[in-house]
């Protein structure tokens, strides 16, 4: 038996080498282009011409300050930040309330509501985009952050509700019941007991929603056409089209846009992956 074990384990240990080889190739495929981008963000325009892929010879940090100014990042970062903050707060508050009602309050008609949310979340944006655009124009919500935030809340809420509900259902009822006996209202129970107990769920949903809003392209393009309202994404699209020949400049702008994403992703990667895969599985 001992021999057999050693044989099997030894065999497995040996056979992992090809795994690493192929995984490293895939790693180069995934990370290589990003490394090239980072290298190119530090090259001069002339250097990129004859050295488009390798390490930079000198470090041209001025690409960054130039990209920051030309890309108008001081405005667009704030704009994107406002959209992310407004949407995350709205989704967590309103979605959390709905999830609480579904998980804890025996909402009459809960099944119908879940079905409605499921249907609403699987309707293609392109179906209702034009009437929504016209409606927003009539309501004076075009080119306004709160107008777009409302749309983002509507589109992100169903997923948030499903995730938060499945989180809250698992919470023990003891605390709430005790609070109810003491005469606490449902709002107090929600705000003081359920939210603090399900904070990991809120954190996960908040991160996933924040990422999707930060990266969102189509709606930001359609609903914020005023240049002073551009997000980092829509502004980058303009910028990269205008300066498509200046690869060092576009690379520097790209790096500035994705460094915050990658840092936050690396810190919270477990939550991101959990939220995105579970969100997918539930949707």
């Amino acid at each position, binding site marked *: 038996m001992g021999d057999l074990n050693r044989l099997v384990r030894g065999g497995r240990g040996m056979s992992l080498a090809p795994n690493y080889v*192929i*995984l490293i190739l895939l790693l180069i495929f*995934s990370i290589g282009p990003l490394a090239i981008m980072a290298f190119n963000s530090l090259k001069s325009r002339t250097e990129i011409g004859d050295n488009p892929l390798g390490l930079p010879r000198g470090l041209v940090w001025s690409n960054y300050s130039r990209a920051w100014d030309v890309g108008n990042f001081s405005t667009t970062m704030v704009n994107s930040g406002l959209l992310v903050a407004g949407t995350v707060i709205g989704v967590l508050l309103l979605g959390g309330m709905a999830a609480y009602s579904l998980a804890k309050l025996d909402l009459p008609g809960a099944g119908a509501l879940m079905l409605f949310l499921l249907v609403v979340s699987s*309707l293609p944006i392109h*179906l209702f985009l034009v009437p929504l655009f016209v409606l927003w124009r009539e309501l004076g919500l075009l080119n306004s952050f709160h107008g777009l935030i409302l749309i983002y809340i*509507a589109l992100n809420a169903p997923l948030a509700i499903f995730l938060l509900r499945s989180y809250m259902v698992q919470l023990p009822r003891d605390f709430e019941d005790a609070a109810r006996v003491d005469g606490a209202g449902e709002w107090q129970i929600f705000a003081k007991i359920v939210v603090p107990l399900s904070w990991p769920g809120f954190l996960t949903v908040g991160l996933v929603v924040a990422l999707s809003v930060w990266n969102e392209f189509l709606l930001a393009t359609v609903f914020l056409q005023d240049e002073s309202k551009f997000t980092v994404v829509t502004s980058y699209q303009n910028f990269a089209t205008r300066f498509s020949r200046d690869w060092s400049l576009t690379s520097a702008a790209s790096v500035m846009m994705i460094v915050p994403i990658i840092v936050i992703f690396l810190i919270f990667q477990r939550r991101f992956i959990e939220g995105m895969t579970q969100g*997918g599985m539930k949707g």
Partner: protein
Amino acid sequence: MRDTVIQGLPVVNVRRSRLTGVFYRRKVVPWLFVLPVLAINLLVVLGPTLAAVYYSMTDWSGIGAAEWVGLDNYRQLFFDDASFKNAFLHNLMWLAMFLTVPTAMGLIAASLLAPITRGALFFRMSLFIPYVLPSVIVAHLWTSLIHPDRGIVGWLNDRGVPGMDIAFLGRESTVLPTIAFIDNWHWWGFLMVLFLAGMQNIPPDLYEAARLDGANRWQEFKDVTIPGIRPVLVFMVLMTSIWSFLTFDFIWITTQGGPAGASEVLSILVFKNAFQNFEAGYAAAIGMTMSVFVGAVISVFVVLRRRGWEI
């Protein structure tokens, strides 16, 4: 304090007010918690969707009055509009590409990664990173990398590698697979993580049993891994099928459907008709058709599940 005030009132009244209190607490309060999000969803999604159903049967330009034209838009769409057929075909090609390439890559990477302990987290995270990047960055990065004068393709071209002197995004024959390649670079890591999560739920005894039976790697993969992650696979097929009819970002950012419509898909047609040709009614009809495809995919899924498939 209250008691002293209502002492003289008939008992019935007290009971009724307590009853309405219970009613309020049990039936009204739960809906108050749901109401804000429901109202926003009705305003943003349901209302405009119903409007789209109506406008798809009008000649509406997007501004001003709309005139009822019945099913004319649909007739034109299905029988007269070559660009619709062309776009729909591209959606089907997109579906075929995304059901195969990323699935294969995801399965290979996940099954190579599953038995690894050293560096597993590092690989999982790194391969997932492209998925968290914004589509504009990914699209513009790859547009440069595959430019015949620059990037990787330019580098290969300079060294005389054949077939690298092509503007992949500028030719009708290569543009669609090229955009799919770019989108896939961003997408496949997500599938890999999904598959990996599924594989980690497979009981290790099954692998040991297979190994004792003398199964080789391929047989292990075929007879243990694939059946073990079947729910994930089915879910992936469903999601890919839905999303292939809706794809927009990468195509719009790289080519806007060009050259000469060679990368047009349905969502691009909606966008062009609505915001460039001012044919909002016609755009709504295309949007309706897209939704019907999505609805059909979901119905197949639901029917299969009703029939007892474990999906």
